[in-house]
């Protein structure tokens, strides 16, 4: 009589080394992936009409926020409170002073800026915002201001691009 199904055969050969290697790989990938933290993003815009001939003029007056460095601050290591070694990335200490100008008013306190933006948004929620950074400003400063502007409720936030290479040659 022929059997229809072969009986299950036990696994032949030693599986232990393969399982060992597999686990090693698994542990390696699990550890490497841990470094990737969840990232967030802040949306903003660039002037739409640069280089394009648009018939539409800008009808709305924009709220301009200017950033200027008053005191550069001490450079610290990116993740510790130790002095910067002079190589690679760094972070500014709490003694960094940045001046924020919103229209005619200026402030050096980010909380005051947040309050002011909140008031202005309540008064005119439709107003677009432009962010302008003077030389010396780093990415962190801009993100903090952008964060406060978004927090106040503004969604139409525009940056102004500069051809830095040309300005350097001219100056």
């Amino acid at each position, binding site marked *: 009589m022929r059997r229809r199904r072969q*009986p299950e055969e036990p696994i032949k050969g030693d*599986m232990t080394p393969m399982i060992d290697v*597999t*686990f090693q790989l698994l542990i390696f990938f699990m550890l490497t992936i841990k470094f990737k933290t969840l990232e*967030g*993003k802040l949306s903003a815009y660039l002037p739409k009409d*640069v280089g*394009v001939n648009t018939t539409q003029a800008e009808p709305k007056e924009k709220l301009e926020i200017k950033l200027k460095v008053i005191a550069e601050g001490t450079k610290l290591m990116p993740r510790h409170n130790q002095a910067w070694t002079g190589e690679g990335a760094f972070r500014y200490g709490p003694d960094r002073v940045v001046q924020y100008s919103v229209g005619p008013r200026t402030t050096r306190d980010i909380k005051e800026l947040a309050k002011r933006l909140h008031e202005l948004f309540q008064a005119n929620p439709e107003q677009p915002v432009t962010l302008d950074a003077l030389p010396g400003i780093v*990415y962190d400063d801009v993100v903090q201001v952008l964060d406060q502007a978004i927090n106040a409720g503004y969604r139409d936030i525009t940056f102004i691009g500069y051809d830095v290479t040309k300005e350097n040659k001219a100056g």
Partner: protein
Amino acid sequence: MKLSRTDPKTDVGIDMTPMIDVVFQLIIFFMLITDMTQKELEELVLPDAQNADPDKPDPTVVRPILNILADGKILVKRRVLYDPQHDDGYTELKSFLAQQALRMPKKPVNDDGTGPLVPDNPLLIRADQSTPFKYIQQVMYLCGLTGIQIWKIQLAAAEQNPDQKPKPQE
């Protein structure tokens, strides 16, 4: 007729097959994930922001990611497109952006559907917290050039986590 189902010498006791299957699945999963993230995202210290939207990348959407290091080096997918030490006048970055802009879906520049078509997808800028903003302004300037005209940008930030950030010393 007697059929012995198992051979007592080689029998491991438990069937290992499902476990090995699951482990292989996990390995494949982690390999794919690490490959995707490490290609595009450089190791940077992003500034903290409270209002950052969580970023869920969609591989079907064309969204170039520029990594700008603290020294102004611009990397895309591990390739250096601009290095302030070997200034090429941003030609390489310009051609990259133009090429990306070409692949993006286009929309008319004005909200009422008139005007020339401009790319409608964003560009994600990931910069280190200490990157001078002039490098980013330069990228923004390049985005506005004829043939690129990318006008939507996203600035990467870390979602605020008070445990990770060192406490400021007074």
